[in-house]
């Protein structure tokens, strides 16, 4: 589905069903340098079970046009603009990594609109290793290789993708390298690195929040994730064993079960 937001064409996967603004809206937010396809094993379920789904490509990412947004705050405002464009009054946000920061900021700014928040592999702040920032700024492919290493736990490293025959690490690499690293991944990483408001925002959230963490996550540690969930009053926390940062792909079925339970209970269709 294509939308025009801030005068730029935006792409969002609707999970294989036509968008219907009468159904409750779930918005999926990808991490740095990725795109909507990372949600392929969650979106179709919700789209075929009573929800309208928008797995967004952030500006400049995937099939969306325009320039990459440079701050988490701008991204949060952009998400609200997307919701407004759909004529939906409410939405449930699901974010991964950088998408968690966007979700936190958006939920904080628009409590009447955002009804639930699901955070995967996130924390309240995500300082980025300066080596990664430097490699990305120089369009050096090594930044992707390092990120693919750190992003994946045992299932990603050894394989055993939920979709038979597919390769976790090579899929991630293909998505990230499909765009100039300097223009997309680098900008995303700086946005994450510069955002420091997450823990403060988290303290004031009153909506239902779900946190899913991987105990083998090397991009955003288990402790950092727990610190965030502790800061959010009443947050549900699930830790998936032997799982890295890419839990929505590495342990897609487990993530979907947890997500279904939380969203259906707190944002029923």
């Amino acid at each position, binding site marked *: 589905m294509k939308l025009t937001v801030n005068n730029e064409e935006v*792409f969002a*996967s609707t999970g*294989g*069903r036509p968008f219907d603004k009468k159904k409750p809206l779930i918005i999926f937010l990808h991490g740095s340098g990725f*795109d*909507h*396809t990372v949600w*392929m*094993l969650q979106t*179709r*379920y919700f789209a*075929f079970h009573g929800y309208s789904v928008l797995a967004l490509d952030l500006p400049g990412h*995937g*099939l969306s046009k325009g320039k990459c947004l440079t701050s988490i705050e701008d991204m949060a405002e952009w998400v609200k603009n997307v919701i407004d464009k759909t004529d939906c009054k409410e939405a449930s946000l699901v974010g991964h990594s950088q998408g968690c920061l966007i979700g936190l900021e958006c939920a904080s700014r628009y409590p009447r609109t955002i009804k639930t928040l699901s955070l995967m592999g996130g924390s309240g702040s995500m300082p980025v290793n300066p*080596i990664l920032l430097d490699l990305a700024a120089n369009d050096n492919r*090594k930044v992707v*290789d*390092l990120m*693919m*290493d750190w992003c*994946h736990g*045992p*299932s990603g*490293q*050894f*394989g*055993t*993708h*939920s*979709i*038979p*025959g*597919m*390769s976790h*690490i*090579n*899929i991630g690499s*293909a*998505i990230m*390298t*499909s765009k100039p690293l300097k223009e997309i991944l680098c900008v995303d990483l700086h946005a994450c690195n510069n955002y420091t408001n997450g823990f403060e925002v988290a303290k004031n959230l009153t909506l239902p929040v779900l946190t899913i963490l991987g105990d083998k996550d090397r991009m955003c540690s288990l402790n950092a994730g727990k610190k965030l969930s502790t800061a959010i009053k009443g947050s549900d926390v699930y830790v998936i064993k032997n799982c890295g940062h890419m839990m929505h792909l590495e342990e*897609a*079925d487990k993530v*979907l079960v947890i997500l279904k339970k939380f969203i259906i209970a707190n944002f029923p269709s």
Partner: protein
Amino acid sequence: MDPKTFKFNTKTLHSGYQPEKNAGSRAVPIYQTTSYMFEDTDTAAALYNLEKGGHVYTRLTNPTIAVLEERVAALEGGTGAVATASGMSAIFLTLMTMLETGDHIVASSSLYGGTSNLLRFTLPKFGINTTFVKQRDTEEYKKAIQKNTKCILGEILSNPINELMNLPAVAKIAHDAGIPMIVDSTYQTPYLCRPFDHGADLVVHSLTKWMGGHGTSMGGVLIEGGKFNWQQNDKFPSMTKPYEGYHGLSFTEEFGPIAFSMKARAEGMHNFGPTMSPTNAFNILQGIETLSLRMDKHCLNADLMVEFLSAHESVSWVSHPNASDYPDKELANKILPGGKGSMIAFGIKGGKQAGEIFLNNVQLASHLANVGDAKTLVIHPASTTHSQMDERTLELAGIPQDLVRLSVGLEDIEDLKNDFNNAFRITKKTLK
């Protein structure tokens, strides 16, 4: 600081498999089953609707075959792979996933005989035609592209004459035309060349050959590079437009870098059914575990045989990238830095008759139609693998009547030389 993801040899042993998810079985189990129990009706519906991954029916996927697919994808640097019953079915699956009636292919004229026949005689029945160009004439590929051309298909080293395609240059021609480059990389295996690193978009293998290496099990595979932009033009509507077979699913929008693999499986494997047997997948996995060791030895033996044949009085010419007069040595070193492969083509003095006598008198080398076995294999293409071609087509493919194709195995090199010397001696004596 370097990434610590697994390197090549580790991948040949471990990619795609975790024992703890398979009852602790250290070896990959053979899931010799046709079908899989559904937890409940919701799960069944979700699997059929591609809402979740998993296994439904072995014609589509199987846990043993999935390990093989993921391992090959990991080795090639691809996003995903679909294994098939044979290399030919992998090529057919690839082309039929992409093409529509009225489409056109540009292909090397030096393709393996089976592929050549598919393009010349079978696909025209579906309204799909091919223009053949000379393997080494890069400009010819460009000139042959028409408005309805949807892909370029080639082999890095042609079968059987060993001509080298300038893959980076031909891939660029394909990309400039907005179409994908398909490479049959059977001769190389991912150990000698990863075609995605040189511009290929889709790679196919006959796994029957060096990947398995034992000559016991048929298999093929299609691997997706994940970087080709199917949406850059309107040439591939079945990839980009809603597909009625799955409730209007757009493969490219939904699955991005694995769109082609998903369509190949959901449509091609489902509707044609060229399924590999789980036992063959297991056998081929055993071969892949020793791929690098075998390929090093294959290449070493081949280089020694090139030296031997080049100096032999019964041999009129030798074609192999390490032969002294090979015309594309520099390009070969660029594309195949780790070894030039174990296929040798040579001309036997005395022409076709000499070739027949020679083949009837080798004892260690096996006269048969396969290549890439651990054992040394020989054949006379003009009377066997390429016998469906008439004289003109053979000439276009650069296959002279005196050509003997040699797939060098892992035997002790002195035993091979002795066998060849003996057969050459009998040939010479008989012709006198």
